[in-house]
């Protein structure tokens, strides 16, 4: 039994040594220090959009460090982002768990660093922003319609933010709208991109809102009707009949589409 005990003791000692060596290598990075500011480097395609957005609403870009909320500003000298800290002790682990927030964006952070450097303590973090969006579909007043998202078979009712998970900015949302509450067989597809909301507002709505008026809804429903006829004149007749049928439908007065920044 004795030799066994001594082997066990040796193994434990080796393990302890190895752990101490490994931790010893991380010591400089994990050395807590008290940085005055945190420098944030934005990398990736949406960095420009992020800066523009921060300029528009500077108070909304924040970082949560150890349950404290800090506003992130733009350093006018370097044009990087920076956060003025309150002298708290920071470690790399603290930086790994920070949460950066701005409505309409998601962030993936990497390369956290806290280093004492020539008497100062420097904390930095790189992050990759990406734009995210959702869509709110609604109709005015108490009217409601049903619609489907993408290829899904489940219909939902307005008002509603879709889809459940925010989408990348470049990903369009495809809808199938049912604007005639009394006739669920009438519907039309509609696809829109987040970038369309920056265009000139239509039908008198404010910026960031797109809409379909009653006339547009009727036209879109008509476009869905298969105009068939045995001859050319038969097709003309079929179109007239289809127009009349659409005119008699009680479509909702308007459908609005709002950009939601999750």
């Amino acid at each position, binding site marked *: 039994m004795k030799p066994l005990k001594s082997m066990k003791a040796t193994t434990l000692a080796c393990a302890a040594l190895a752990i101490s060596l490994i931790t010893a290598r991380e010591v400089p990075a994990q050395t807590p220090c008290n940085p005055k500011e945190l420098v944030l480097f934005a990398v990736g395609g949406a960095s420009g959009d992020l800066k523009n957005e921060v300029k528009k609403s500077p108070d909304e870009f924040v970082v949560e460090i150890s349950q404290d909320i800090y506003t992130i500003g733009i350093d006018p000298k370097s044009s990087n982002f920076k956060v003025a800290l309150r002298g708290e002790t920071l470690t790399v682990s603290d930086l790994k768990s920070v949460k950066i927030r701005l409505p309409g964006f998601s962030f993936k952070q990497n390369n956290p660093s806290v280093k004492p450097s020539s008497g100062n303590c420097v904390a930095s973090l790189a992050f990759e922003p990406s734009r995210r969006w959702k869509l709110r579909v609604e109709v005015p007043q108490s009217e409601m319609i049903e619609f489907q998202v993408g290829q899904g078979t489940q219909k939902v009712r307005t008002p509603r933010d879709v889809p459940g998970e925010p989408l990348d900015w470049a990903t369009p949302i495809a809808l199938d709208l049912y604007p005639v509450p009394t006739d669920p067989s009438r519907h039309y597809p509609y696809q829109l991109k987040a970038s369309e909301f920056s265009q000139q507002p239509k039908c008198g709505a404010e910026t960031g809102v797109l809409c379909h008026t009653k006339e547009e809804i009727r036209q879109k429903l008509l*476009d869905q009707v*298969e105009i068939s*006829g*045995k001859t*050319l*004149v*038969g097709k*003309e*007749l079929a*179109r007239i009949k289809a127009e009349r049928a659409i005119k008699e439908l009680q479509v909702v007065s308007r459908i609005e589409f709002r950009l939601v920044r999750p």
Partner: protein
Amino acid sequence: MKPKWLPLYLLPLFLITLPSWSVSQGIEVFRVNDFLAPYEHRREKVDQNDPTSIAPFFSSRFFSGADQGYTYRNDFFGQDLLFARVVNNFYFSRFQINANATKYWPSASDESPLGAQGIPKYRFGIEGSIYDSLDAEEPGRFKLIWNASRLFSGKTIHEFGFGIDVKVKDEDRFVGGLDYSWKPSADEHNVILAYDYSLRSPSQSGFDATLGFALNGVHNGRFGGALRFPEMKLQIPISPNNVFLHVGYSAAFSFRKHQVPDQTRRFNQEVVAFLSFPVFNRLSQ
């Protein structure tokens, strides 16, 4: 002078075409069928047995384009031309009135012997039709035709005729017709037996493609004739408002042994491309 053999000549053609309704081919490649069964413009909210339940329908359509190797019935002019055509159709009860006008701009000048003898400056036509059923989905149609053509020579040629249109089989895809015309000034009798097969079901929207042939018999002192095959037409929608691009091809071979002024060749290939769009449509309430 009407030859005595004429009824015998027509009889087999009548028998062949009895079960069908007509197509426009065989006369001019750019003509478009205007057949509209009365049940198609029936009012929905009235007594279905009431003959007045068929809502009057007016349709006016404009056609314009180019025709290379223009032919009219069995006349091969060997010319290219531009044309513009307006066709007005009024459908009421089991009746139909078609009034059409066509303006031709042939490549030959006014002074050209060909232009002077064959292609008209313009042509007016009136066709009165009667459908044999108010309810049938594929009724037959009988029509009387009068055409007046003003030639570059200053001469006006009248044509009188009739046509029978009936479905052959297969959900209106296979249709045929017989068309007879008489030109008193030339004492010329023309008979056209034409068939068309639609490559798409008529209930489908979008483009249409038809394949057809036409057999043309003529007598103006001597017998002659022409066979058109194949005659292919494409009708492609280019806007949701019933604007169409039409493309057609027709190959024709003449049986005429003797040379006539309008028959410049034995074999003819014709290519047409034109646009058509609705000018005015009105369906009574």
